[in-house]
């Protein structure tokens, strides 16, 4: 993952390797990030992610929930082709989480 710090939000670039490697690594990474995030908004963006482990997705949701506890809103940006997948999780019901679909050409 890579972090881009903007004026009032933090953008996290989420790559395929983050989505498929050992979930424990991902969790530690998220834990570290939580220490340094101090802006009111976080946007996590899937970058060229073609497959991912369910555990990684679980961790992303955990991450967002923990952020919410700190009062930080989150946004999840995924490519269109993952749309139907996310729909199964009814992410629209998760409070303070926006899920946007990116239209890839």
């Amino acid at each position: 993952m890579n972090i881009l710090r903007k004026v009032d939000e933090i953008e996290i670039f989420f790559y395929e390797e983050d989505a498929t490697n050992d979930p424990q690594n991902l969790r530690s990474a998220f834990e570290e990030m939580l220490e340094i995030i101090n802006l009111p908004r976080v946007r996590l963006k899937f970058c060229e992610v073609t497959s991912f482990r369910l555990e990684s997705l679980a961790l992303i949701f955990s991450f967002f929930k923990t952020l919410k506890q700190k009062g930080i809103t989150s946004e999840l940006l995924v490519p269109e082709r993952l749309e139907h997948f996310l729909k199964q999780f009814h992410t629209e019901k998760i409070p303070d989480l926006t899920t946007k679909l990116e239209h890839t050409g």
Partner: protein
Amino acid sequence: MELDSLISDFVSEALELLQKAETRILELEEDYNIEKLHSIFRAFHTIKGNSGMFGFHVIQELSHKSEEILDAVRSGHLPYSRELADLLLKSIDRLKQILADIYNEKNYLISDLIEEIINFAQPSHTQTSKEVSVREEAPNLEILYSEQIKLALEKKLNLYYYLFELLEDSNLTLDELENKLKLVENEVLSRGLDYYSIPLIYEKKISLPYYFLILTQENIDAFETKLGLKAKQKITLHLHTQQKTEEKTNNITTNQTDFLRVKIDLLDDLINLVGETIITRNQLLQRAPLWNDPEGSSILSRMSQLITQLHTKIMNTRLQELSTVYQRISRIVRDTSKSLGKQVELKLEGGEVELDKTMIDTILDALVHLIRNSIDHGIETPEERKKLGKSQEGLISIRASLQTGTVRIQIEDDGRGLDYEKIKLSAIKRGLLTESRAQEISNEELTEFIFLPGVSTKENITETSGRGVGMDAVRNGLKKIGGTIHLTSVTGQGLKITATIPQTVSVISCLLILVNGRRFAIFQKYIAELLQFEEKNYSVINGHGMYQLRENLIPIIHLGKLLYGEDIQSKQQNSYIVIIRLDTYYFGLLFDEMLGTEEIVIKPLGEHFKGIKLFSGATIMGDGEAVLILDVFGIADYTGIHTIEVKTSKEIISKTKERGKGYVLFESSSQYFATLSSSIVSIERISTQSIYHISNIEVIEYKNDIVPIQRLEEIYNIEKQPDQKEKFVLICKVEERYLGILIDKVLDVIESLQLVPSSQHWQGEGILGHALYDQKPTILVDIEAILTKVNHNKFKWLGKVIEETMSLEVK
């Protein structure tokens, strides 16, 4: 006094309500159910009301506050959480404490608890700890889905909230999930990620909880099976009333109408009366033959039957279900595992098995101790378990079953099991085991040491488990009610404890004996044999009286001396010995006269006799006199008899090494043989597993040598009996090599043998003659001659094979 009995009723009713509430609270943690919440509320509410009437204001206030907090949960202002459950349990414990000491009720302080409850109920109660359980924030489902509940009510269907873990089944893909859902599409009102159950990053748990909201006619368990997904949580939001009565309730019987509250005193009186009726009946039965009245006798016979039936039924009134014990156990497991940082799953089976009320208390104490031990010593910490490849949650299962009047309870855990090496060391250190014996002792025999007071393999004594005095207390407690306990364990895999207890305390068969003019009773159950004392078999070894019984030397206790300080020399003629068998060891009791067997009713001795181990109670004979019942376990403990090593064949083997002359008597397939001691180099004890086969020859390893062995059955055409696990080999040296005769067991070593004229039957190679040993025909053989011949035939080529093989190995 009137008031006293009213108060007493209030206390017992309140305790019952609290017990039920406790069970419900524990159940709610597994399976959240609105009905159960209501019943807990009602329990506190009732206690609040009743206590007020008696002026028990302390109880009233604590119940009131507890009731309030439950009301907050009911109305959705407060979520039901583990912390809340803990608080309620604390409240219940305190109330139980106060109720047990009701006349001092005013002196009990509850301000600490009240404060805790008030703080908990504050709306501004925020969770600052990182370790927060997610369900704290969960909205009240009843409120969230109130619309759907109304719908369920209208349509007369059940509404369930079904939560399961997506990550649980690694084979389940989302597509498969979709397919499964298609099957039940019509019944699923909504579904999705259960946001509230998602763990925080700090919780170090990876979970993807998914829920369905289901509206269905069926029972949720049936639904679960249909879906094929294991639920993490099943919450009943609305149950159509018809099904309420059909749904299986747990072991606690709540149906009040089939039961009647009876004072225990009344039952005890009934039992005493029946006991006396039995004694009086026995007296009549003794006299009946003297009347010479056949009709009268048959009437008496009929009455006797009726009395026996009456007795059985009355004894059964005191039967109580084990589930009452199980309730307590659930709570203890929860509390203990929590305080020790272990995760434990408890499986309980057989709660419907019934036991006499007096036994329930003993069982409870025993189980509590065993479970605590298991959680403390047995089950490893979650980290350790993970390292060992076990599931992080340990499992303890308790299974009860009833077989012909005996209740069997098995407690099994999947923890560390017994560390046999540590037990050995501990026993050696305490002088209970010699180094040499330690090398041969089997694991099964080692478990015996666990039951000796003071033997502990735990380095740190924790507050939870005590100082290794527990197991002997457990066993003694069980013995007192006629029960037994056994342990088996595989190190690293767990421990299995089996306890057996008779279902009722009733009439027990006993042997009556006379010691110093007084009668005593011994439970028939522990008697292995009865013999008439013979001076020649008696000797004193190391200050202990020992008696030779076949191939064993058994320690003997002189009852006259033990009980009355009688001089041992006197009265040894015309005495008798009863051989007692306890678990794995035997000992004998020397007494004056045998009076016969009797069926007796056991009566407890009073508190004044608490410290005396030698008696387990008293009974009343037909003539109205009291007789003491000897406690064989207590006698064994008191005299320290289990520390005396019972001599076995091993000692006899060493006897041959010393003597060099005389004869060794042994047995093969039930045939007795004898041979000159001088032909034997040594006698080895082996397990049948250590017999190898080279072609059709049996061999064993002896002193780094391969020694061929011969069975006498083959030579003399004796029908071979199936091999026991353990056998012996008589090792001889023949023409510079070792050879052996394989036998079943060594019987004795004697100085001389009286030969008897032989019949035609047994003639053959190596037979020197016939004798009688223990009144059985014994064949005197010359094993050197036998082996020499075999060596020239069968074994000769073997020597070559062995040499060749060994030279191959060296390469």
